């Protein structure tokens, strides 16, 4: 008989091996899916995972894109991972991302066309504040009324999408836009443009902020009392209570932290790669970041790598759409499968497989 036996402590080796195993399993399952769609599975996998980085025709364009896509994913996922570790489930990062973008863009557009070195820093503050504010709604409702933060944060995504639709047709609409919905293009507003720091590297300020967030979170989780409280709350809530950890403060901190980072991601996106507030500005980064957080094992360094890998599937996916005519949805499915395989292989971290003969 085969059964699972609980390990006394999570295995370190499997913590590293399981994400790799999950990626391989996803490639196999994805390959089967691509074959079912009538495409050559080996070619599809190569186009998604290899060509964006190494094919001479695409690499020059794709490599910078890697950072452009990975930046927001890492930034959001880092924030979420702290909450997830404590058992606080902010799954509405998509909404906080939208609000951060709206607040950031609004800060810039309110002073248009003034040029000043203060504008971009003000946008950063406004973006973080927008995301933080949106995350404070579930935080306050949870701490004051014990309302489930999962449902509230998720519902607020739909509310944020409505607000986005409203402002892009009203409040923030470009007055010189010939009536088309959408704000002014911030790329043409030098003080507000989130430009690449190094030309043609894809490295804009959001990517740099993401790297800083990784380092900051790593130090906080391993060296700071707040990180210890987060882990204690997640692994032994009772012990956390007896140790005097304030649940309220931790909930407010975790939701606020992830909200602010998601807001920053939105602000850097709208002022850089996207350029303007439009109805379909948000592209699901807030949800994909949840996969990134888990794929990175809720560990800052892991999330950094996972964010790059997930960015690769986005870019490779676009390339595969172009080259093979692979439907866009198949990439979405591919990413979803990755999360499920990851959760399935996760068992080997906390349990070991035992074989028992007839006893």
């Amino acid at each position, binding site marked *: 008989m085969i059964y*699972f036996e*609980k390990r006394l402590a999570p295995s370190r080796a499997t913590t590293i091996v399981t994400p790799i195993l999950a990626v391989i399993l996803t490639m196999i399952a994805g390959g089967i899916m691509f074959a079912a769609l009538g495409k050559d599975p080996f070619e599809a996998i190569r186009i998604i995972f290899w060509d964006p980085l190494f094919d001479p025709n695409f690499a020059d364009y794709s490599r910078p894109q890697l950072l452009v896509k990975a930046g927001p994913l890492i930034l959001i996922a880092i924030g979420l991972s702290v909450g997830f570790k404590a058992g606080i*489930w902010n*799954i509405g990062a998509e909404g906080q991302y939208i609000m951060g973008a709206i607040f950031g863009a609004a800060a810039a557009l309110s002073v248009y066309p003034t040029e000043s070195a203060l504008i971009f820093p003000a946008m950063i503050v406004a973006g973080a504040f927008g995301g933080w504010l949106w995350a404070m709604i579930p935080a306050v*409702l949870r701490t*004051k*009324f*014990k*309302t*489930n933060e*999962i*449902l*509230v944060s*998720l*519902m*607020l995504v*739909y*509310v944020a999408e*409505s*607000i986005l*639709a*409203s402002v892009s047709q*009203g409040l923030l609409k470009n007055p010189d836009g010939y009536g088309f919905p959408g704000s002014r293009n911030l790329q043409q507003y030098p003080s507000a443009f989130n430009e690449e720091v190094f030309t043609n590297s894809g490295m804009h300020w959001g990517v740099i902020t993401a790297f800083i967030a990784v380092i900051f979170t790593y130090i906080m989780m391993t060296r700071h009392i707040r990180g210890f409280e987060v882990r204690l709350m997640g692994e032994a809530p009772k012990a956390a209570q007896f140790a005097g950890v304030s649940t309220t403060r931790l909930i407010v901190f975790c939701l606020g932290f992830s909200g602010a980072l998601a807001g920053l991601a939105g602000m850097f996106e709208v002022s850089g790669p996207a350029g303007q507030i439009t109805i379909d500005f948000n592209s699901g980064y807030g*949800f994909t970041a*949840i*996969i990134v957080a*888990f794929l990175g094992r809720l560990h800052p360094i892991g999330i950094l790598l996972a964010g790059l890998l997930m960015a690769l599937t986005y870019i490779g996916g676009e390339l595969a759409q172009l080259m093979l005519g692979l*439907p*866009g*949805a*198949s990439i*979405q*499915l*591919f*990413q*979803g*499968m990755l*999360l*499920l395989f990851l*959760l*399935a292989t*996760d*068992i080997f971290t*906390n*349990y070991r497989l035992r074989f028992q003969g007839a006893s």
Partner: protein
Amino acid sequence: MDLLGINPILLIASLMVSATPILLAATGELVVEKSGVLNLGVEGMMIVGAVVGFITAVTVESPALGFATAAIAGALLSLIFAILVLYFKSNQVATGLGLTLVGLGISALLGKPYEGIKSPSLESLDIPLLSDLPVVGRMLFSHDAMVYISILVVLLVWYTLKHTRLGLILRAVGENHDAAHALGYKVIHIRMFAIMFGGACAGLGGAYISLARVPQWTEGMTAGAGWIALAIVVFASWKPWRALVGAYLFGGITVLQLNLQAAGVAIPVEYLSMSPFLITIAVLVIISAKGNHGAPASLGRLFHASN
């Protein structure tokens, strides 16, 4: 603005139609949660039900078969969740989310060739005599069969949970899985059954959107209905009849805001379309502020039989 143009009879009639998908999904999820499992994949199962039901109904030109395959598809998708959560002991919140993401992907992939087609229409089931009643007849007794089936499902779930041995065992598993295990009940099997029932209900609910309410296929057409269903389970305090009330209230708000949009009220469309979500949040707050409200004690907790 033409508020008088809103016909209250039509309003209530369309309220029932609008509430049916959420009611089905919420009732299914209620059973799942009663067994102690939180499946956040409702949205994913609904949309897969919507697309599979639609494809079947269009291909074989039978809405009834569409609903049947939608239920099967929902149950099969929930089986993935069940295996991961019950056998691989994965985190329920993350797995449910993963299921939603996968469901959205599958549905977009399958549904692409079927965009812009109209589904065969559902016949309305005029209940003899009752549907001829003035006012009430049009309002309550001349809907399609699924509206009544959804109410029957609520009745069935209520009766099973409250008055049968199966229901008692299911609740025992949800309240204290270790005790239920010690008594010799197969915790895993019972939860597996509950999850698949929830999946089938969500699939039916999704198919009702694509076959009756809209009726055509567009990507992402469930538009948050699955999440609303999850909220309604909380609103209902895990009681089937209150889920019915919750779903109809929500259906009422949705229909009313659509009617207000059509009537050209001075409130911008975006604010009207966010209102159902805001009201759901408000209701969740009111319910949760009242304190302990009957959540199954083992809800979301991991079960591992240690011998």
